[in-house]
């Protein structure tokens, strides 16, 4: 029996996209619906923001196409893993797009990054993930970046534990 039967996977083409997709596909065995979503924030359509986020020149079409390419690649990779998925691009702020898409497909889990793309302010908890975690009616799988990173504060904790 599938653990989750309706998965919404939020990707943005950044460095975590591969990892997020891997986890999603792991959890998608036997699922009915797997949807890859790329949310395109209208604020990123023009100027330097677009180049910074999507690596494209400014312009609505360019950004939209870049997002579509991201989800198309994910759907293809899923097919290779024997999973039938679909892709979607929504033009809205990421929190709105993700929660709306999750509600529309009646998702039972959202898979997404804990933090946003590198280069954007790495806040303690990403504002998008916090927004989704607070508003989602579904389970949320949050994938952190730097999964193999050593954490210096952990060592400090271990030192104190020994006291």
């Amino acid at each position, binding site marked *: 029996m599938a*653990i989750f039967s309706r998965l919404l996977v939020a990707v943005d083409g950044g460095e975590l996209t591969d990892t997020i997709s891997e986890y999603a596909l792991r959890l998608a065995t036997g699922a009915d619906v797997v949807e890859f979503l790329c949310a395109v924030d209208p604020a990123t359509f023009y100027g330097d923001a677009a180049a910074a986020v999507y690596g494209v020149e400014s312009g609505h079409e360019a950004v939209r196409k870049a997002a579509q390419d991201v989800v198309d690649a994910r759907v293809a990779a899923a097919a290779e893993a024997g999973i039938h998925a679909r892709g979607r691009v929504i033009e809205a702020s990421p929190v709105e797009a993700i929660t709306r898409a999750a509600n529309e497909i009646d998702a039972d889990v959202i898979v997404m990054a*804990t933090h946003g793309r590198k280069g954007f302010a790495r806040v*303690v908890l990403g504002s998008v993930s916090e927004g989704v975690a607070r508003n989602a*009616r579904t389970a949320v799988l949050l994938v952190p970046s730097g999964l193999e990173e050593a*954490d210096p504060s952990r060592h400090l904790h271990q030192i104190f534990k020994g006291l």
Partner: protein
Amino acid sequence: MKPLHSILVAIDGSPPADAALAVACSLAKEYGGAAHGCLVIEGHPQLRGRHVQWMPEDQADRRREAANTSRDAEVKAALLGVKLDVAVVDGEPIDEILWVADEIGAGIIVIGSRGEPALETLLLGSVAQGVLERSHVPVLLVHDLPKE
């Protein structure tokens, strides 16, 4: 990508934690049939010289309650066909959950979105939020029991 066979689920007896346990058990059944649980008895920080030490709750009923809750969780898991081993630890919940996760080499932490109903006005509990912020492995945040 860390293997998913080492699962840590946070236990506190609350409804979201029960839902988290059910989800953790489903995951466990796909990946080896065993999971680890962590129940933290929140201590009180006390200043000892230059260090802050977490003093354990020494009220007998808190400890008894913790023992019951952890046993309940193990029984529920067994009924779902999963061998659950719950560690009951003293300290600050976020720190201890992350520490146990590290110790067991957890590939995923499963946690309820918030604790007891008394604090239901919080959309995201402080422990869940703290674990999300600092975990180096994926965190599965669970609100309710999975839909049938």
